[in-house]
C-alpha cells in the first residue's frame, strides 16, 4: 500500500495546518507605547529544568483558593443557648510554600465561653497546616452573647470570628392539668367600613401573637427552684415547652444520641426549633435543637448530654417571656400553686386549610359546629339616626342589609382535629379573611323532584322572595345530600308560586337528579369573617385528648361579581 493511501486516516483533511497564514491588515496601535505595564510577560524557567519551554502561568481555581488564610466558620450563630454548646473553628494556612506565625488568638467579650486552643501563641503554622480551636459556650453568663475571637497572624490584619447567640433557660415545671391550659392566638386587623357595609380589611400581623396560661403546683426543691429562677431570671427569655404537645418516649435513649424516636405529626416541632426533654422533676431537663424531622423520629443538631429513659416527656419548645410575673398561692410551707402567663416571642406559623371545599374563591367551613352548648345567632344592622330631640327621629338604613352573626364551636379530639381547627384559625387570620359558613340549619325544604339539568328548585315557602331580596348572606345555598355529597349554588331569582311553594332559580344546574327524600339539609351559605381578632383554645388535656375553641363569625358583603378570584374583602 502506498503511504499516500493512509493520508485520510492520519490527517483530518481539513487542512488546518497547511493554510498559509492569513494576511494581517492591522496598523500600529497608538496606545501601545503608553502601556508598558500591560505588555508581554515572560516567565523565568530555572536552569536545571531540562525542557526550557516558554509560556505564561495560567490562573486557575487554586489561585483563588490557596495562598491565603482560611478561617472557618467566620460567624458562629449559636441561636438559643440552653445547654452547653461546643463548636470548632478551623484555621488553615493555605499558603503552599510559606510558614506563618499566629501571634495572638484573643477572645473579646467572652464571658461564659471557654476557648481551647491547640497551643500557646506564638504558634507556628507550617505551609498547608490546619489547627482547630474548640469553643464551648455555657448557659451561665450574659443573656446576649456577642463575642469576637480574633486571629492575628504576623504580617496580616486580624481575622475575626463573630460569636452570637442568646442564653435561654428551660421552663421545666409541668402544668396542673385539672385546670387545663389556655392558649390564645391574637391577630390584628385594620378594618375600613363604608356606609354600605363594604369592608377593606388589612392584616397587621403576619403571624398571630400566641400566649399560654397555666397553673402549676410545685413542691419541695422544685418550689424553691421556681422561686429562684423567677427571682433571678424572670426578665429573660425562657424555653417554654408547648405543654399540650407532650409525648412520652417509648424507648430508652442513651447519652449522646441524636435521633429521638417519637411521633412528630401534628405537633409544634419545626426544623431549627427547640425541643425539651423532661424527667420526673424540674431538675432533670435538657433543651436541644432540631435538625430534621422524620415520620417517626426527630434528629437533633447536637447529641444529648444525658441519658433519657423510657417515659421521659418530650415537648416542642417555643421561646417565651413571662407576660407578667407569676402569682403564687402558698398552699403550705412545702407546696405552692402559681399561675403563669407566657407570651411567645417568636412567630408561630401554621399551614392554612388546604383540603376544604372551595366556593367562589373562598373555603367552605363545612364541618358542623359542636352543639353541646347553645350557639348564639344574631344580626348586626347599621342604622343612621338623626334625632334633634323635639321632632320624630329620622332613621336611615344605608346598607339595607344586616350582617348575620353566628357562633361556631369546635370540640377537638386528638391531634389531627386540633391541627385542622388551628388551620381554620390561621385561615381566618382573626378578622381578616372570609370563609363561607353554612348556617348548618334546615333553612329550606325541597318539595319537588329536581332534574339534574334543571336550574329551578321548588321549596317550601319561607318568605325568601319577600324578605331576603337575594342579598348577600341569603342568596347562596349549601345542599347536603344523604349520600354525603354537598352542592353549593347561588340563587339568581326567587318567586313565590303560592303560600306553600317558592321557586328558586340557581346559577348552574345541580348535575344530579334529586328527590326530596335524598336531601339531608339545605342551608344558607354566608360569606363570613371572624368577629374578633383573638381566638382561644382551651386544652382540657394534652393533644391526645380534648380541647375546645369557639368563635363568632360575622357576615361580610361579598362582591356581586361572579369571579372566582379572591374577593376584594
Amino acid at each position, binding site marked *: 500500500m502506498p503511504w499516500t493511501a493512509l493520508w485520510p486516516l492520519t490527517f483530518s483533511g481539513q487542512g488546518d495546518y497547511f493554510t498559509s497564514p*492569513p494576511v*494581517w491588515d492591522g496598523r500600529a496601535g*497608538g496606545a501601545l507605547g503608553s*502601556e508598558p505595564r500591560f505588555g508581554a510577560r515572560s516567565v523565568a524557567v530555572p536552569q536545571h529544568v531540562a525542557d526550557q519551554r516558554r*509560556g505564561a*502561568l495560567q490562573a486557575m*481555581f487554586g489561585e483563588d483558593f490557596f495562598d491565603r488564610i482560611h478561617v472557618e466558620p467566620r460567624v458562629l450563630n449559636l441561636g438559643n443557648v440552653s445547654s452547653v454548646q461546643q463548636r470548632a473553628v478551623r484555621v488553615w494556612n493555605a499558603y503552599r510554600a510559606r510558614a506563618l506565625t499566629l501571634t495572638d488568638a484573643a477572645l473579646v467579650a467572652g464571658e461564659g465561653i471557654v476557648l481551647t486552643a491547640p497551643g500557646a501563641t506564638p504558634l507556628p503554622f507550617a505551609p498547608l497546616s490546619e489547627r482547630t480551636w474548640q469553643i464551648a459556650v455555657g448557659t451561665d453568663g450574659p443573656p446576649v452573647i456577642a463575642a469576637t475571637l480574633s486571629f492575628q497572624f504576623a504580617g496580616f490584619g486580624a481575622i475575626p470570628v463573630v460569636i452570637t447567640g442568646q442564653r435561654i433557660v428551660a421552663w421545666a415545671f409541668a402544668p396542673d392539668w385539672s385546670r387545663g391550659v389556655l392558649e390564645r392566638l391574637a391577630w390584628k386587623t385594620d378594618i375600613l367600613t363604608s356606609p354600605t357595609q363594604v369592608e377593606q380589611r388589612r392584616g397587621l400581623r403576619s403571624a398571630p401573637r400566641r400566649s399560654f396560661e397555666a397553673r402549676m403546683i410545685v413542691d419541695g426543691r422544685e418550689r424553691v427552684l421556681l422561686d429562684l429562677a423567677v427571682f433571678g431570671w424572670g426578665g429573660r427569655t425562657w424555653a417554654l415547652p408547648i405543654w399540650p404537645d407532650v409525648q412520652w418516649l417509648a424507648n430508652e435513649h442513651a447519652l449522646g444520641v441524636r435521633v429521638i424516636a417519637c411521633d412528630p405529626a401534628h405537633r409544634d416541632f419545626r426544623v431549627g426549633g427547640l425541643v425539651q426533654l423532661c424527667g420526673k422533676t424540674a431538675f432533670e431537663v435538657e433543651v436541644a435543637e432540631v435538625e430534621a424531622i422524620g415520620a417517626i423520629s426527630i434528629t437533633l443538631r447536637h447529641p444529648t448530654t444525658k441519658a433519657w429513659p423510657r417515659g421521659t416527656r418530650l415537648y416542642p419548645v417555643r421561646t417565651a417571656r413571662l407576660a407578667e410575673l407569676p402569682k403564687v398561692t402558698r398552699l403550705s410551707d412545702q407546696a405552692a400553686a402559681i399561675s403563669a402567663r407566657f407570651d411567645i416571642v417568636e412567630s408561630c406559623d401554621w399551614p392554612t386549610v388546604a383540603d376544604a371545599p372551595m366556593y367562589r374563591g373562598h373555603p367552605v367551613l363545612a364541618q358542623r359546629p359542636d352543639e353541646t352548648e347553645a350557639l348564639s345567632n344574631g344580626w348586626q344592622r347599621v342604622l343612621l339616626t338623626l334625632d334633634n330631640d323635639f321632632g320624630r327621629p329620622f332613621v336611615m338604613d344605608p346598607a339595607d342589609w344586616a350582617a348575620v352573626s353566628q357562633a361556631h364551636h369546635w370540640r377537638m379530639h386528638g391531634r389531627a382535629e386540633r391541627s385542622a381547627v388551628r388551620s381554620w384559625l390561621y385561615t381566618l387570620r382573626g378578622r381578616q379573611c372570609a370563609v363561607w359558613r353554612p348556617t348548618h340549619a334546615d333553612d329550606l325544604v325541597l318539595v319537588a323532584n329536581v332534574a339534574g339539568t334543571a336550574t329551578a328548585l321548588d321549596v317550601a315557602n319561607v318568605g325568601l322572595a319577600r324578605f331576603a331580596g337575594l342579598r348577600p348572606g341569603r342568596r347562596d345555598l349549601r345542599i347536603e345530600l344523604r349520600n354525603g355529597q354537598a352542592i353549593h349554588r347561588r340563587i339568581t331569582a326567587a318567586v313565590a308560586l303560592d303560600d306553600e311553594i317558592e321557586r328558586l332559580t340557581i346559577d348552574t344546574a345541580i348535575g344530579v337528579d334529586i328527590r326530596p327524600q335524598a336531601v339531608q339539609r339545605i342551608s344558607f351559605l354566608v360569606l363570613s369573617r371572624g368577629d374578633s381578632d383573638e381566638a382561644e383554645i382551651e386544652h382540657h388535656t394534652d393533644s391526645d385528648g380534648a380541647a375546645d375553641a369557639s368563635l363568632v363569625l360575622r357576615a361580610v358583603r361579598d362582591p356581586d361579581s361572579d369571579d372566582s378570584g379572591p374577593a376584594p374583602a
Partner: protein
Amino acid sequence: MAYATSAANDPNELLDKLRLFAQGNGWAIDGLRDRTTKTGRALSLHAGPLYATFLTELTGGDGNRPPPFVGAFGHTGYVANANADVQNEASAIAWTNYAQGPYSAVHFFSQVAPQPYLHIVLETQAGTFKHFGTGRLVTAGAVHTGQYVYGSQWFYDANHINSPDDQRHAVAFDDAWYNFVSPVTRVRADYDGVASRWHSVSDSDTDTRRLLCGWRGRAAPINLLKDLGHSTLTGRAPGQPLWCAVPRGAGLFSDVGHPPDLRFIRLDSYAPGEELTLGSDRWKLFPVHRKNGPAGTPNSGIYGYAYRITD
C-alpha cells in the same frame, strides 16, 4: 469602596449612578452626553490608559432582542466630538438587551490597579440578571493591551428562552454563539507587532479576529470545567478564570489572559446574590441570566458568574 449596590429606574439613571460610582473609585470621567445618532446617553471614562464609553439606547431591537439597551465599547484617548459614538481605535459596541427599569438592584464592582475594570450586574427584576462592563485582562503570553468590553444578550424567543446552552443567547465571555444577536464579548489583543486588534466571538472558524473563551462551546477553554459541580464534601464550587484565546494563524491559538476578579461558577449550591467566602476574599455570585426557574421564563440553568469584592 470597590463594591457598591444601588438602585435605578431606567438605563439613563443607571449611567448616572455608574458615573458617581466610577468617579468615587478612581476613574476619570470624560463626559456624560446625549447621543446624537440614537436616543440615549453616553458616558465616557478612563482609568490610566484604559478608555471606555458606556451607552444607552432606549429604542430599536425587536421582540427577540427587546430594548432598551445598555452597551460599552473600548477605545484609546477621548475625543470630545459632537458624536459621542466616535472614538479612536474603538471596538464595536457590546450590547446588553432588555435592560428595562426600574431595577431590583444594581451591583457595581471596580478596581483601577493593577488591572482596571468596571463590572456591572443589573438585577432587572427579582432573580433576573444582566452583566456588562469593561476592563483589562490579566494578560498572558505575548499580548499587549488586553482591554475587554462585554454585555449580555438573551434571545427572547419562546422556544429558546429557557435553554441556557442555546447558541442564540450571547453570553459574556462565552463563544458558543450564532449570529442571532450581536456578539457581546470583545477583547483587544495586540501581539506579534500586530496592533489594533479587536477580537470578538465569532461563528466562523476562519475568522482571524475570532475570540475563544467561555464554557458552552466544545472548543471553549473551560468547556470541560462547566460540568464540574460543587464539592459533595463542602458544597462549594470552584470558580474558573474566564480564559480568552485568539488565533495565531495556522490553526493555532494563544491564551491572552482572563478578566480580573471575574469567574465562571456553577450555582448548584448557591442562591443568586449569595456571597462566597474564600479565606479573606468575598465573591458575589450571580446567575448568567436567571437560575433555573419554570418553563417559559428566561433560564440560564446553573451557570453563573462570581465577582470578587476587593475592598
